[in-house]
């Protein structure tokens, strides 16, 4: 289970860095550093006091999702404030990456938040609802591929 915690820290850092790299008016490094620190602190609190190593890292995953929703919304704001009129929106790698992250994180936020409660209740729907996560994960990966293709075109 500890791998989930490490993955949460690495995933957040990588996705935030990728979004920042593609922005026109880049988010300050200090802000990104603070966000990574907040996320890491939440992971530590989660593993130490809330979920522990026996349960899914529901709390830290939810915080990561909320933070990434914020960062991707900032990416959309950047797209609107500095539109590149030489290309269509669909040709922008930032658009696809931010959209993929937003769909994945916003779609899964409730799932992340109530996962441990459902597990503790032995809810019969527990396994089924993770299928939703799988579908959103596929969507996110498809959008990630589109991002790479757009970057290649550039």
């Amino acid at each position, binding site marked *: 289970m500890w791998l989930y915690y490490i993955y949460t820290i690495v995933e957040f850092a990588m996705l935030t860095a990728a979004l920042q790299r593609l922005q026109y008016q880049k988010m300050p490094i200090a802000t990104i550093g603070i966000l990574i620190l907040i996320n890491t602190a939440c992971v530590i609190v989660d593993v130490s006091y809330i979920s522990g190593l026996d349960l899914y890292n529901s709390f830290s995953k939810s915080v990561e999702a909320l933070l990434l929703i914020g960062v991707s919304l900032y990416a959309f704001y950047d797209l609107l404030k500095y*539109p590149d009129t030489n290309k*269509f929106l669909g040709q922008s790698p930032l658009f696809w990456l931010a959209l993929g992250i937003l769909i994945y994180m916003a779609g899964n*936020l*409730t*799932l992340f938040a109530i996962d441990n409660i459902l597990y503790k209740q032995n809810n019969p729907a527990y396994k089924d609802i993770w299928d939703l996560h799988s579908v959103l994960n596929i969507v996110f990966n498809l959008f990630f591929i589109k991002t790479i293709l757009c970057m290649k075109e550039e």
Partner: protein
Amino acid sequence: MHEGRVDLVAILIAGTCGAFLFVAAIVAFVMQYYKRVFIHQQELKTKELEKERDLLLALMQGRENEQKRLAEELHDGLAVDITVINQQLYILRKQLGEQEQYSAQLNTIKEMLVSAGENVRAMSHNLTPANIEKFGLVNTLTDMIAHINRSGEIKAELHAEGTPNDINKNDQLIVYRIIQELIQNIHKHAEASSLYINIAAHNGNAVVSVADNGKGLPNGNEQLNFGIGLTNIESRAKLLNGIFTIMANTPNGTIAILRFPYKTM
């Protein structure tokens, strides 16, 4: 307990649906806004291009008028003066009779005057492409080619395909000036023994190429840095909404190609 379970799943579904609605709303807003900005920027760009084109056109027309005025002054002023001087020389020769000591000098002066008169007429001719209005691009270029061939310095050929004379007169004049500039460049720099002009105009698209067999581009570069002459050509090509390229010709020399869309008269 059971109700609590149902509630949680319901919350999950509601949360996920809400998230999707939220994402959809954001994406719709971003796309709509981006589209509006994109269209607005494209309109601004088009307006700027049109403005630039109008300015270039006005500049070119001003230059054409100035050249025309200069050509008229050369033809009606200097050329006439030379003819009058020539006549005075003829009278002077008659008055001096058959005096050997002046004959050689008078002959030299006469030859110089004839040469000067021809040069002035040639300059005047180069400055006024009056034939474009009357006879069209192809005939005017044929006339120019004949003039080049008569000079004997370089062998020139012209090939026309389609309907180049259907291109509107203003654009024909621009094409003529571009070809004239290219030929001048070949004369000055290429050390070529022959040049070949090809004009093709079909269905609203024209391609003009001027090729020579000279020494080619400097340092064997495929693309040439644009000097003043070539920058003028670029500006004129812009007026035609055309694309101008110059590159190495095979086996030697250079080839300049101008592609542009045209409207018929």
